[in-house]
């Protein structure tokens, strides 16, 4: 009687240098796109800290608010904004490639789907801006 063979095999994983993404422009841009999430996470955590300071009283909150006007913070926010914009542009640009929109028997052209995604970004930004400026 034949003994039962172990048919499980370890998957072959090709070893690649950690810097593989620096060797090709497309790979580099892919990694830049992935890294946008780090800057966005840092921003929301910093914003959470600002919100937390509201619970510590007016003096602490306004002092921190004042420090946000220093050059290092302004440069930091400018960098975060660049990465956040890159995320928005690439993310919304993907919508027309992955989302097929059908209305009845009509398939909406990908160009219009993409346009809708970018328009929704503009509308959402305008609404938030209005609320920040006017909400009481």
């Amino acid at each position, binding site marked *: 009687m034949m003994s039962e063979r172990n048919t499980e095999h370890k998957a072959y994983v090709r070893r690649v240098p950690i810097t593989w993404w620096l060797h090709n422009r497309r790979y580099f841009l892919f990694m830049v796109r992935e890294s946008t*999430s780090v800057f966005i996470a840092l921003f929301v955590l910093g914003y959470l800290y600002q*919100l937390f300071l509201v619970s510590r009283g007016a003096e602490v909150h306004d002092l921190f608010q004042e420090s946000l006007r220093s050059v290092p913070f302004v440069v*930091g926010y400018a960098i975060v904004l660049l990465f956040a914009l890159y995320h*928005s542009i690439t993310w919304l640009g993907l919508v027309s490639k992955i989302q097929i929109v059908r209305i009845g028997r009509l398939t909406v052209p990908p160009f219009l789907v993409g346009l809708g995604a970018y328009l929704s*970004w503009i509308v959402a930004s305008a609404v938030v801006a209005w609320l920040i*400026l006017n909400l009481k």
Partner: protein
Amino acid sequence: MYKEDRTEPFWWGMFSLGGVVAALLIPVHVFFIGLAVPFGLIDESLLEYSRMKSLLANPLVKVYLFALVVLPLFHAAHRIRFSLHEMGIRRVLLSLDVLCYGGALMGTAVTLYVLLVI
């Protein structure tokens, strides 16, 4: 043998939701919170304590801020996990799943706490 991970759809769903929130809402917030006041584009009283305190008294504002903070954390957790994996890093003391998704879950708990105490 391939083992089905039943939690995977949840993490992908949170990644997508966070990506949409980050794409639509984060740039405008970064601009107003970090750049508009230093460049003199808006009145600094808009971000001062008394206004923030009265805005945060509104439960709808808290729900909005919860989504604004938490969903991008899940988005980032997912992207960081896969980016590190693609760079050949499989674990840093703990598995990447625990570190990244655990971090996002911890961020959720901290956000809940902050929004409840203010």
